[in-house]
């Protein structure tokens, strides 16, 4: 479980994240949703220590991460898998090498075991037999999936995904969502997913935090979100007329 307590962030004199608290539960998919530019990525980067926080606490199973000594921080980080919004695959390495990388660094697996693990991860993200491609040879959505494969390769205890299914078609998108959720349940991972996709919210949102202009605006379950009365959230959820019509049609039945 990861708890954030009253974290804030300013860039220059712009307050980007304003006093956010939330409990990201273990074994559940916790979502952060919100408009573009509302501060979601910033929150995630603060949680993993890529941005310093301006006040507040970030507790990894009780340990206050920002003030841990470097060595202990690295120990926590070895248990983190993270999918960056832009993928952040290592350009100079093939997919196989990318996914093996955490295994090479931190495990004493045999070559055989590593290869199996790589193939297993590639299978999971539907990139079977693409081992020897370089990131430059992948499409945007394939990069996302490859990055997810790398994030899960070393069995993380904490999984961070920044928009895992942006740029994917609806069908692949659902596959990835379901993959994240099933891994979370199977290995009891604390998973945090940033998404804009309402479909994901409703499907896999076990804990949802809605951020509005850097503030925590609404918390709840993905299924409850459709019945919200919060005006900003309503606006966000039903931004497209299509969603509104579908929802009304379903309600009438």
């Amino acid at each position, binding site marked *: 479980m990861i708890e954030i307590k009253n974290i804030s962030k300013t860039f220059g004199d712009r307050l980007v994240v304003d006093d956010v608290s939330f409990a990201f539960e273990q074994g559940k998919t916790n979502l952060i949703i919100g408009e573009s530019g509302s501060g979601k990525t910033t929150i995630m980067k603060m949680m993993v*220590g890529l941005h310093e926080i301006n006040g507040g606490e970030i507790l990894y199973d009780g340990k206050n991460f920002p003030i841990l000594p470097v060595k202990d921080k*690295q120990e926590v*980080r070895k248990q*983190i898998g*993270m999918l*960056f919004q832009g993928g*952040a695959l*290592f*350009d100079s390495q093939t997919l196989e090498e990318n996914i093996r990388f955490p295994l090479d*660094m931190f495990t004493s697996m045999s070559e055989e075991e590593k290869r199996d693990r790589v193939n297993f991860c590639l299978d999971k993200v539907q990139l079977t037999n693409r081992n020897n491609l370089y990131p430059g040879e992948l499409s945007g959505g394939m990069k996302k999936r490859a990055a997810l494969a790398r994030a899960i390769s070393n069995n993380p205890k904490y999984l961070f995904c920044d928009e895992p299914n942006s740029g994917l078609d609806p069908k692949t998108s659902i596959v990835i969502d379901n993959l994240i959720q099933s891994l979370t349940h199977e290995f009891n991972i604390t998973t945090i997913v940033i998404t804009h996709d309402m479909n994901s919210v409703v499907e896999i949102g076990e804990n949802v935090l809605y951020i509005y202009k850097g503030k925590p605006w609404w918390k709840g379950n993905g299924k409850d979100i459709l019945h919200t009365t919060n005006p900003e959230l309503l606006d966000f959820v039903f931004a497209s007329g299509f969603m509104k019509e579908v929802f009304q049609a379903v309600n009438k039945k």
Partner: protein
Amino acid sequence: MKLFFHLGRYFILIKRVFSKPEKLSVYLKQIVHEIDNIGIGSLPIISIISFFMGGVITIQAAFGFTSPIIPLYALGFTTRESMLLEFSPTIVCLILAGKIGSNIASEIGSMRITEQIDALEIMGINSAGYLILPKILAAIFILPFLIAISMFLGIFGGYVMGIATGACNSYEFIFGIQAFFEPWKLYYSFTKVITFAFLITSISSYFGYYTQGGALEVGKSSTSAVVYSSILILVFNFIITQLFFT
């Protein structure tokens, strides 16, 4: 003030670079890769430049040495001293600062702006050590060999062109390159090379590592890397020369 900021940050980075590696085997693999990249990759350009510069030095010297009291072996001697003391260790390293320096800064810089360095950090890896240490060690290891090749080819170029243009004969030149040889000058030259290898790789890595922004900034970092490594090569060339010659 800005100078002190950069100096401070540079030394903090260097300290991180030299902290204990996570996994030796991975680092060794990286070092071999970098030796290939830095060393073998630079061999063609260095060979060509050294051969022709050696030749030109000989021809120019022959043109100047018209007085009958200058012995003919002076030609070989002059070529050897120029190559050994200054051309190969300093000028070739300046050229390498351009080639290797911009390469390193843009490689690390683009890893920075595409969050690949953040990805390393998140995995719990000391990104500075992982990316920079292999480059520094590889350069310190391989540059002396490159420079030795450069020295040899320079003198060889002098020999070939000296004879081709009729400036001297083979016996005189070979006598010249063996005359008055003092081994401490080689210590001097290779002290310089090792120092420059460290300067080029560490300074270029520094500029790459702290790139902020986008592709434009990667270009700027790469320019800064070349400019500052060149300046520091000249400064340290002066300091080391003072130490050895006084």
